[in-house]
C-alpha cells in the first residue's frame, strides 16, 4: 500500500530519516515504534504528504505523492493525531462530516455512515452535537477516529492516538481500536512509543532508531531474534508494560 524507497529527511542539522526503505502491506496493521526522536512520526507525516522527503520517494497505491495528486490521495487516507486535531469551532458531528459535506454528499448518504461509525467507536449519540471542549479526551479521540474513517479510506494513519489519555481509558480504547481494525481490515500505520500497545494492535512492528529501521517483524521475532543489541535493550526497558499486556 505504502512504499518508501531510500527516504532521507533532515530538519536543519538534525537527521530525522536516514535512508529508509520500507513497504506497508495492504490490509495489515503496522506499528512504528522507537525512542523519542527516532523518526517514527516523521515517517508517518511523510506517508500523508504533510512532509516531503529531501531524497527518495514515497508511493501510495503505486502512485507518488506529488503536489498535484496529493489532495485526492489524502481523501483515501484517514489521519489521527495525539490530541485529536479536532476543530474547536465545529461540533463532533460537524467535525466528522466536514469533508463529506465539503465534497457535496447528501444527508441521506451521510446519516447511515455516521450511524455506523458511532456504533463502531461506541460513541454516544447525544455527544454528536457537543463541541470538542465539551467532550472528554477519550471521546475526542473517538471523534477523531470517526472523522478519519468517514470517507471510508483505504489507509488509516494514527500518530500516538492514545498518547494523551489516562491508563484506564487508554486500555479501553486499545481494545476498541483492535476491534475496529479487525472489523474494517484496512491498511493501518500506527505510531506509538509503547511496545505492549504495538504488539497488541499490530501484525508487524517496525522498530526504529536515529532515523533508521532497526528491525521489522512480530514481537516474537524481536524477542527471539533481535537484529542488534539495541533491540534487546529496548524490549528490556519496556518489559514491565509487556507483562501487563501479554497476560
Amino acid at each position: 500500500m505504502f512504499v518508501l524507497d531510500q527516504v532521507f529527511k533532515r530538519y536543519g542539522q538534525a537527521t530525522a530519516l536516514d535512508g529508509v526503505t520500507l513497504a506497508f502491506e495492504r490490509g495489515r496493521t503496522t506499528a512504528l515504534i522507537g525512542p523519542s526522536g527516532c523518526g517514527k512520526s516523521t515517517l508517518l507525516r511523510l506517508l500523508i504528504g504533510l512532509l516531503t522527503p529531501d531524497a527518495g520517494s514515497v508511493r501510495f497505491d503505486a502512485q507518488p505523492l506529488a503536489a498535484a495528486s496529493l489532495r485526492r490521495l489524502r481523501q483515501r487516507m484517514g489521519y489521527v493525531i495525539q490530541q485529536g486535531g479536532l476543530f474547536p469551532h465545529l461540533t463532533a458531528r460537524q467535525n466528522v462530516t466536514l469533508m463529506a459535506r465539503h465534497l457535496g454528499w447528501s444527508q441521506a448518504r451521510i446519516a447511515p455512515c455516521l450511524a455506523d461509525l458511532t456504533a463502531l467507536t461506541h460513541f454516544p449519540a447525544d455527544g454528536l452535537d457537543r463541541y470538542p471542549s465539551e467532550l472528554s479526551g477519550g471521546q475526542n479521540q473517538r471523534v477523531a477516529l470517526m472523522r478519519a474513517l468517514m470517507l471510508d479510506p483505504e489507509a488509516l494513519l494514527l500518530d500516538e492516538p492514545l498518547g494523551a489519555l489516562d491508563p484506564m481509558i487508554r486500555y479501553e480504547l486499545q481494545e476498541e481500536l483492535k476491534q475496529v481494525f479487525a472489523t474494517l481490515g484496512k491498511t493501518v500505520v500506527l505510531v506509538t512509543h509503547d511496545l505492549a500497545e504495538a504488539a497488541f494492535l499490530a501484525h508487524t512492528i517496525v522498530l526504529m532508531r536515529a532515523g533508521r529501521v532497526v528491525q521489522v517483524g512480530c514481537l516474537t521475532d524481536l524477542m527471539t531474534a533481535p537484529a542488534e543489541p539495541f533491540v534487546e535493550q529496548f524490549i528490556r526497558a519496556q518489559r514491565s508494560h509487556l507483562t501487563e499486556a501479554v497476560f
Partner: protein
Amino acid sequence: MTARRAWAFLGVLSALMPLLAGCGRTGDEVVIGSKKFTESVVLGEVLKDLVADSGTPVRHRRALGGSRILFNALANGEIDAYVEYTGTLTHEILARSEPQDEAALVARLATDGIRMAGSIGFQNNFALGIPESRAAALGVASISDLKAHPDLRLRFGSEFMDRADGWPGLRDVYGLPQRDVRGVEHELAYRALGAGDADVTEVYTTDAEIAAYDLRTLVDDQGYFPRYDAVLLYRADLEQRSPLAVAALRRSLGLIDAERMIALNAAVKIDGRAEAEVAADWLRTRFDLAVAAPTEGRAARLLRYTLEHAMLVGVSLLAAVVVAVPLGILAAYRRRLGQSLLALVGILQTIPALALLVVMIPFLGIGAGPALVALFLYSLLPIVRNTHAGLVGIPATLRESADALGLSAGARLWRIELPLALPTLLAGIKTAAVINIGAATLGALIGAGGYGQPILAGIRLDDTGLILEGAIPSALFALAAQWFFERAERAAVPRGIRG
C-alpha cells in the same frame, strides 16, 4: 457572523448610502457657505434669507471650515457665495505680501470666475486683545508695548498662528519676544483670557467678546494689520444661472455696519440665540422681510446628526472591512509582505485626523467625502492587525489536520481558519467602529455633519448644552456599537470557541 446576518448588515449600510448623495448639490439650488465662526454663520444666514426672499431655492452650508476651505469650495462650485474679508484674500488666499487695491483684487478674482461685489458695510480687522485690568497693570496700550513683557502668555486661533498675515508676520515686524505662544480654538482663547490662564489673544474687532470679557484692543502702531473689509463673493456664472439670486445677494451690500455686526454677534454669543433667528430678526426690521426662520426641533436635529454620523461610520467601516480583511489574510499568508503591510497601516493611523482631512479637500471637496476616506484609513489598522493575529494564532496542528483531511487551501481558509479567527477579527472591527464613532465628530470641521456639528457649535458659542447634545449621543452611539458587536459575536461565534 452568519451569512444571513452579514447580508442584513450590508443591507442596512447600503440603505444609508443615499444620504451621501444628499450631501451633493441639486439642480438650480443656490448654495451659500460660511466659515466656522459666528459672524460668518450669521452673514451666511443673512445671504440665505435674502436669496430665499427672491423665491430662489437656497441652502446654507454652515460652518464649513477656514478661509482656504471656503475659497476653494467657491472656486470649485461647491458653494455659490460667501462673505470673505479683503485682507484674508490678499495675504492668505492670493499670497500677496503687499496690499492690493480693490480694483486689482477684483481683476485677480475674476480670473478664477469669482465676483467680488463690494463691502457688506463693515471692517473686521485683526487686533490684539488683553484684559483691561492686566493692560492697566502692565501699562500696555500698543503692540510695541508688549516687547517689554516677554513672559506674557499668548494664545492664538490655529488659523492666525499659521497664516502669513497672522502671528509669524506680527512677531517679525514688531520683534515680539514672547516664548509661551500656543494655538488654540479662537473661542477657547477668550475663555482662557477670562479664566486668567492666558494674557493676549488675537481678536476680531467685531467680536462680541471684546466687550463681554472687557478686553483692551492694542493700538497697531506699526500699521501691521491690513484692512479686512467684509465683502460679498459669488461665482460669476451665477449671473447667468440665477440673476434673481445675484440681485438678492447684492441687497446685502452696505447692509450691516460695524456696530450692527457687533450687536448681531453679541445676540448669538452672549444672549445665546440661534444665528438663523438673529439674522431673520435683523432682516425683518431692516427690510420688513417676512422670513420664515425654519426651526428644527431638537428631536429632528438629533435624528439628522445621528443619520449623518451613522452614515459616516457605517460606510467607512464597511469599506474598511471589505479591504482590510483580505489584507489581513494576505499578511498572514505572506509573512514578509505582512510585516510591511502592518507597518503601512500603522503609519496611516499616526497621521493627524485634521491634516488628513485638509489634505484631501482638493481632491474630494468638502463634506462627507474626505471624512469617509479618513475614517476608512483609520479603520484599516485594527481590522488588518486582528485578522492577521487571528489567523497566525491558529495552532499548526489544526492547519495540518485540515490539510490531512484533503481540504484545498481555499476550503481550509473558509471552513477552518476564518471561523477560528472570527472572534479576534470581530474584536478588530468593534475597535475600529468605536474609534470611528469618536473620530467622525471631527468630520464636522469640514462640513461632513454628524455629532461633531453641535460639539463644534457648542465650543464656538461657549454653550455646554450644545456640546453635550453632540457628546452624549456620540458616547451612546459608541456604547450601542459595542453592544451590537458583542451580540453579533455571540450569534456568529460557535459555543466551542467562545471565550
